[in-house]
């Protein structure tokens, strides 16, 4: 057989050849560009001439006779021009009309020039890439340093920013420090050193990681954004506060602190418990960060339209976006919870039923609140959604609020229409106060389980339930956008009870 096996020796030759071809294309482009630019200049001088030509009725000129001689003569009818339109077509026109034609041709020339320039740039970049590729393959090992410059403003948070219950407490930093200690100790949580608060924080962290893991298993793969929710929930956990209160306006600071250590942790070190976060970071930012000091790829993150996923009763997720566009742009932090997170970012065009929800948002309390389908199942939503992003509570809030609205509201049906109907029946006994403000649910609350109402937590076992104690809690009076319907382990419950 003719040897088609590419040995390692062929690779540099191939690369050389590729680079050669690239260079060839680039030089071709350059020559063509010079040619077209000459044409452009010619047209410009022609325009000048056309400007001045009709100034006089006739000009005294030297008329060329053949290739070698000139004769004195006059240029008359200075405004009458016969223009070649192309393909053996001529037209008699005035100087001004001729100018219009010239302008039109210049447009064409400019288009050609632009195309050529783009092609040239393209190929130059390609040449650059091949060089980088070559460097990479020849470099040591499989490690590549991919750097991405992330501005503070650009890191987008999905959903709401969370505020600590106790703004003055600083468990986060300690926690962060703790985590770094953990790193040093190769990922083992050093409980002996932790104080009690930190211990709880640590527990929270671990719980959250577990949840993330569960979520990840559950989430669809196409939803790359899913990781964001988990990561965002990891963010929340990091705050290490007992109650997770979703604050629409965000608290930025805490999250930033969380972000930085996250990034640091991710760098170059993969820890078992932090690995998820690392990957989440990775997916969120779409860049791996490994500090290895090797060939560096500079990556720039393109902000994609953030999608919000709403968990429907059937454990399917709908992409629902565009909820907090303003907030998003105002305070871009780390992306927050995904499922039930409300990060918006899409443009106002309707191509799917979901878009309608996105576009038609109500502004409630100064925030855009998406309208929810009346058919949407809420209680199951909340339960299914394992993510404890605070935005989910807002979502929940809206839903409940919406429920209080006219039932004649008919938007495009969601996919969980059937779910919604069944859910509605279940919820029908709950009377809602349809007021203009979409606030906490008021009315009778039916508790099916004897859950301590003071503790805003849910249990996974009873899907329909979690909503109720939450509602009650909200009714009691937290004005802040609500508790996320999150699952809380009994440890946490116990701890909260202690407090």
């Amino acid at each position, binding site marked *: 057989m003719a040897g088609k096996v590419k040995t390692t020796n062929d690779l540099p030759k191939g690369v050389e050849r590729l680079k050669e071809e690239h260079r060839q294309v680039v030089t071709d482009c350059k020559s063509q560009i010079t040619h077209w630019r000459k044409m452009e200049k010619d047209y410009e001088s022609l325009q000048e001439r056309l400007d001045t030509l009709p100034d006089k009725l006739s000009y005294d000129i030297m008329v060329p006779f053949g290739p070698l001689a000139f004769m004195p003569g006059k240029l008359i009818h200075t405004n009458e021009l016969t223009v070649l339109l192309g*393909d053996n*077509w001529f037209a008699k026109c005035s100087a001004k009309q001729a100018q219009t034609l010239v302008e*039109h041709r210049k447009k*064409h020339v400019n288009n050609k020039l632009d195309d050529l320039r783009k092609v040239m740039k393209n190929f130059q970049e390609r040449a650059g890439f091949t060089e980088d590729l070559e460097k990479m393959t020849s470099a040591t090992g499989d490690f590549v340093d991919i750097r991405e410059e992330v501005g503070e403003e650009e890191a987008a948070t999905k959903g709401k920013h969370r505020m600590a219950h106790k703004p003055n407490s600083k468990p986060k930093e300690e926690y962060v420090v703790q985590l770094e200690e953990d790193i040093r100790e190769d990922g083992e949580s050093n409980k002996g050193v932790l104080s009690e608060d930190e211990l709880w924080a640590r527990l929270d962290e671990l719980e959250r990681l577990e949840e993330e893991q569960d979520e990840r298993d559950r989430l669809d793969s196409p939803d790359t954004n899913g990781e964001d929710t988990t990561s965002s929930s990891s963010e929340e956990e990091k705050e290490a506060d007992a109650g997770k209160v979703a604050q629409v306006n965000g608290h930025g600071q805490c999250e930033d602190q969380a972000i930085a250590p996250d990034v640091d942790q991710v760098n170059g070190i993969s820890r078992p418990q932090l690995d998820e976060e690392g990957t989440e970071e990775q997916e969120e930012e779409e860049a791996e960060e490994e500090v290895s000091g090797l060939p560096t790829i500079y990556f720039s993150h393109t902000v994609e339209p953030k999608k919000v996923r709403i968990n429907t009763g059937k454990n399917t997720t709908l992409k629902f976006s565009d909820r907090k566009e303003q907030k998003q742009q105002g305070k871009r932090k780390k992306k927050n919870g995904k499922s039930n997170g409300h990060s918006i970012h899409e443009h106002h065009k309707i191509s799917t039923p979901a878009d309608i929800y996105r576009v038609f948002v109500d502004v409630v309390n100064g925030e855009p609140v998406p309208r929810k389908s009346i058919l949407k199942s809420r209680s199951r939503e909340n339960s299914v959604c394992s993510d404890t992003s605070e935005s989910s509570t807002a979502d929940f809030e809206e839903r409940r609020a919406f429920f209080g609205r006219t039932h004649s509201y008919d938007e495009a049906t969601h996919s969980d229409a059937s779910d919604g109907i069944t859910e509605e029946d279940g919820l029908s006994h709950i009377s809602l106060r349809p007021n203009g403000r979409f606030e906490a649910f008021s009315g009778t609350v039916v508790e099916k389980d004897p859950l301590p109402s003071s503790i805003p937590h849910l249990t996974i076992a009873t899907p329909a339930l979690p909503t109720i104690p939450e509602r009650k809690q909200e009714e009691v009076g937290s004005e802040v956008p609500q508790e996320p319907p999150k699952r809380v382990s009994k440890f946490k419950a116990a701890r909260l009870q202690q407090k």
Partner: protein
Amino acid sequence: MAEAIQRKLQSELEKYQQIQKDVSKSMSARQKLEAQLTENNIVKEELYLLDSQNTVYKLIGPVLVKQDLDEAKATVAKRLEYITGEIQRYETLLKEMERKSEQHREVLASLQQEYQRAQGLPVGKLPLWPTAI
């Protein structure tokens, strides 16, 4: 045996080269047509910029023949259609020729293999036999 293969190889090679030439010819013809297409497009646009007050001439040989503006527009449009039709024709032709050249290439490759085998066997037959066992 080897000579027969060689001869076959030669003929196939010639056929392949012929097809390649045809392909390149059609390619250049098509490129010319494309240039004409763009030119006629420009003419059409420029004709629209004019009004009927301007006289339009067509160069036929050494003569500039006066034409009506609308007539000119119609003529240019028809020419454009003709050119696009020609381009499509050439496209199909080109594809056909590409296919044929591909076939020939494969035939050539297989013939080459045979030839090499035929070449290789007589030379290394004896040494191979013992090792094969």
